[in-house]
């Protein structure tokens, strides 16, 4: 049994190229990836979310997110039928360890996973004074941490609370939509770890992506549409009380 997986893959040339880069993480990764052919987003299928916190944990290990900060998190909503505009929301440790039994009975209850919306008109990249955060040609909002000043203006400008300052590097941090994975043909860590398919990576430029069929047949909304950020994280069956 001296044949490692790497050896096996040499025998399967098509997969081998991608896999080699997946593991080596070399900058010239995935030579067959062309930025202009993609426009990334994500579908959150809310009726499938069970609040297990797998996505939060997966994101933390995949991206070394420091404790107490979140690139993705899960909120639990409790909406009473007499005051639908003022939901009770909790998210203990971002839902990383799941959720304790609810304090209040009755009403409407559901989970909402949150992450960077990878807005096409992102207020955070607009305010960056030096061009350290930007929208990549494939539609992902990224931070160049070797160029970031740490002025925190972008954190203030995000309407969704998706950014934070990394306590060690003192630069802005956020969801990269697992850019190191999606450019190698993999899905994001949170989608990979989601047991119910409540999170699905979507390539809006790929005509064969199932997202297109889904959008035709479901009630899909985005968060805070009045912010006009052209968010690309699409929520199926989103309740009006979610903010």
């Amino acid at each position: 049994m001296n044949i490692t997986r790497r050896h096996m893959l040499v025998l399967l040339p098509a997969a081998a190229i991608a896999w080699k880069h997946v593991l080596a993480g070399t900058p010239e990764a995935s030579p067959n990836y062309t930025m202009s052919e993609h426009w990334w987003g994500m579908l959150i299928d809310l009726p499938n979310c069970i609040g297990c916190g797998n996505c939060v944990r997966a994101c933390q290990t995949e991206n070394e997110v420091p404790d107490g900060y979140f690139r993705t998190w899960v909120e639990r909503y409790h909406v009473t039928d007499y005051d639908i505009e003022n939901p009770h929301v909790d998210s203990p440790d971002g839902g990383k360890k799941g959720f304790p039994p609810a304090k209040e009975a009755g009403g409407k209850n559901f989970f909402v996973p949150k992450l960077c919306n990878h807005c096409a008109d992102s207020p955070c990249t607009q305010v960056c004074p030096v061009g350290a955060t930007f929208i990549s040609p494939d539609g992902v909002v990224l931070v160049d941490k070797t160029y970031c000043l740490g002025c925190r203006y972008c954190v203030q400008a995000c309407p969704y609370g998706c950014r934070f300052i990394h306590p060690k590097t003192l630069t802005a941090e956020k969801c990269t939509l697992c850019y190191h994975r999606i450019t190698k043909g993999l899905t994001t860590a949170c989608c990979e770890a989601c047991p119910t398919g409540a999170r699905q990576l979507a390539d809006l430029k790929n005509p064969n992506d199932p997202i297109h069929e889904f959008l035709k047949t479901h009630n899909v909304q985005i968060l805070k549409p009045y912010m006009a950020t052209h968010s690309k994280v699409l929520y199926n069956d989103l309740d009006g009380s979610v903010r």
Partner: protein
Amino acid sequence: MNAFKDAGHLFRLAAVFVAGGMAFVGVRAFLVPKSFGQYGHYRGNAMAEIAARPVNFAGHQACEDCHADVLEKKKSGKHVHVNCEACHGPLAKHADDPGSIQPAKLDTAVLCVRCHEANIAKPKTFPQVVSADHSSGLPCDTCHQPHSPAITAEETTGGKK
């Protein structure tokens, strides 16, 4: 001509400003990263650097290439769409060199309740139990096999009580 001479100090000041401006232009050409502006107002190389990060989750495709038997077992059950690493955790190192890292044996008493512990906010159709009442402390895999969790008639009679 006299006015020209009397404004001499202003020309000196202007020279200081021009020198400062030229120094700025020179320094700027030297300090701005080469790939800046390649795609937009940012460093073009930044994307390749971010993409260069190694992965931790290998992805189910990689698991299934070797563990076809488990895939087969899953196909018959409700967990068919649950990816391997959703329960087993990130195992890219194992996928790279199976000998290097052995996945830890999972404790079903901890694992299963992450998803199946009853919570009012979970979708009504999702199978959930109050674990304390449901199994009286027995680990889940006493009755359920995680790769295909439904209890078949054969297993119920043959399994431990």
